[in-house]
């Protein structure tokens, strides 16, 4: 109670990091290919989709493969982090039942190891970007890209804050989310550019926050451009209240949560 805020923050950070490290170890240490799995998922899909669209359908979109790769890596992170975030309370029941920790710590720590896997993928992405595709975005655009990454992480956190306590109540949410993720995969401009979609449908796609993040992060990295500032303003205007709302949801839904686990 008398702990200073900084000391508390340190304590929280130590816990988050320790739990995330444990998750990482559990996930990759025992498996045969270990850390290779982290890369296999997005890059495997990348090879398949790239072959299908570039070679079979003879797609002529400029810089198609690198755009596809950026989209896939971001989507894989989103998919992973939301799933881990949603199931975090149930997965960490043993700890929650015995220690009084702020609930958000559990959620954040569960999404962190998806974040670490994502960072590994980013390294490969930049190697491809500079080495293979010979694209050199200006530093401020790289920074802009990371801003979108932070926003993407924010979206997964908002999602997890709302769904993690709900998942304790409804244990089939993860199956529903799996299906929805498929829908989102096809409903986001990952393997097609948003410009390929005719207008009435395109506005529907813009309701998907991923559309905004994917489109603009690709524009920043590949084209070194920053367009339509009204989009950004609108996004932030929705993002901030959603974040506050999700915190409220977490607090409200978490009441008596532990008894239900």
């Amino acid at each position, binding site marked *: *109670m*008398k*702990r200073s805020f900084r000391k508390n923050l*340190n*304590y929280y950070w*130590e*816990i988050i990091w*320790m*739990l995330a490290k*444990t998750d990482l*170890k*559990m996930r990759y240490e*025992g498996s045969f290919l270990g850390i290779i799995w982290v890369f296999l998922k997005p890059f495997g899909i990348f090879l398949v989709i790239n072959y299908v669209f570039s070679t079979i359908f003879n797609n002529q979109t400029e810089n198609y493969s690198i755009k596809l790769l950026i989209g896939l890596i971001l989507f894989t992170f989103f998919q992973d982090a939301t799933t881990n975030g949603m199931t975090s309370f149930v997965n960490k029941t*043993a*700890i*929650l*039942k*015995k*220690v*009084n*920790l702020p609930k958000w710590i559990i959620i954040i720590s569960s999404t962190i190891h998806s974040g670490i896997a994502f960072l590994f993928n980013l390294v490969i992405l930049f190697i491809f970007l500079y080495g293979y595709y010979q694209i050199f975005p200006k530093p401020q655009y790289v920074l802009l890209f990371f801003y979108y990454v932070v926003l993407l992480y924010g979206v997964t956190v908002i999602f997890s804050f709302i769904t993690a306590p709900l998942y304790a*109540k*409804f*244990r*089939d*949410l993860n199956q*529903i989310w799996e299906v929805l993720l498929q829908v989102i995969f096809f409903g986001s401009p990952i393997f097609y550019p948003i410009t390929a979609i005719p207008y009435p449908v395109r506005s529907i796609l813009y309701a998907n926050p991923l559309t905004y993040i994917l489109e603009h992060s690709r524009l920043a990295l590949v084209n070194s451009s920053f367009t339509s500032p009204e989009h950004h303003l609108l996004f932030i205007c929705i993002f901030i209240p959603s974040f506050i709302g999700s915190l409220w949801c977490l607090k409200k839904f978490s*009441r*008596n949560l*532990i*008894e239900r686990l």
Partner: protein
Amino acid sequence: MDQNIAISVEHISKSFSIPHENRNTLRERLMHFRKKMTYETFHALDDISFEIRKGEFFSIIGRNGSGKSTLLKILAGIYTPDKGSIRVNGEISPFLELGVGFNPELSGKDNIYLNSTILGLSKKDIDKKFKSIVDFSELDQFIDLKLKNYSSGMQVRLAFATAIQSNRDILLMDEVLAVGDVRFQVKCYQVFEKLIKSGKTIVFVSHDPDSVQKYSDRVLYLEQARMAVLGSPNEALSKYMYSNAIKASETTALEDQNLFSSDGLKDEEELLPSITSAKIDFFDNEPIEKMIEVSEVRFFNKDDVEEKILTHGETMRIDVVYTVNSTVHDLVFKMLIRDQLHQDLFLSSTLAENITTGEMMPGKVIISYKIPNYFSRGKYSVSPSVCERTQKIYYERCDDFASFQVHQANPIKPSMGFNFPHSINLLKSL
């Protein structure tokens, strides 16, 4: 709030709603959205109020399901009470049971780091304390082994060694000493002493009277969600143990019936391997009617009032009632008393006491024993038997026919075998 108070609890109540039918998925909810969910309400805590002073060793005892663990979870902030309020003065350790974040797939070393972090230690602190944790747990050579390969005793040692490193003002401990060998328990007690000396407040939950008695300043005894006693260890523990004894004797009565009804002759042979084969021969020849049989065993306290709970130190009486079916001569009556672990403690025989029984006509015979009750607290069984003079043929042998309970007012005395009144002289050579 008074600065000398560590925790103040005011009128706390907590109940749980247990649904009759678990609807854990969205699909089930949608399918039965019209059917109302019905609940069973379970009152875990009912109007609990107390204060714990700083530096106090405060114990909470009660039987399983009395609400003590729920109370501790509320103190730790894991559960929120339905009614009432708690105020905590100082940092409370977040840990409850041992092995909080323990992960069987990780090595002992990793688990120490994980658990200590949750307990609030920084990486640097753990690095410093790591060696002393390992030393205390005596697990040097196993520390890189995965936890799932540890025995339960090893896990407890590791958990306790880690847990005591938490440097919070108020420590909550739930059944920490329930497992672990005697030598390690002694070590734990030494730690308790050190913690108390360093002025920490300890809230200790247990159903073991001995460990509660040893260190507590005050004890809260919970009975069925309510506060039964809040006071000195002696006061609370004697009440706790007395009501325990009553509960036990109620269940024993049931067990006795079960034992008796299922106790066929063949089972008896298994239960009593020491019985000579002569007895079997005897029953084989004449299986239908016993010449003499035990019909009842009754227990009396020092005032000759029939009771199943007898007080230690007073004189007790055991009456064994036999029914004689046909005339028998020169019998030897025996009575064996065993403890809970089925160890023979005491055997009385009319032959050894030089009592001749002569001829017995059909009817009732009562053998009445007067014994000074030096049994320590616990449950004891009575096995009466009758044999002929040469002790080759047993007419009747009823294993663990009835049982009684011994209540001991002084909870500090060990609960094993006999407690004879005695004096101790301490002689020191100069």
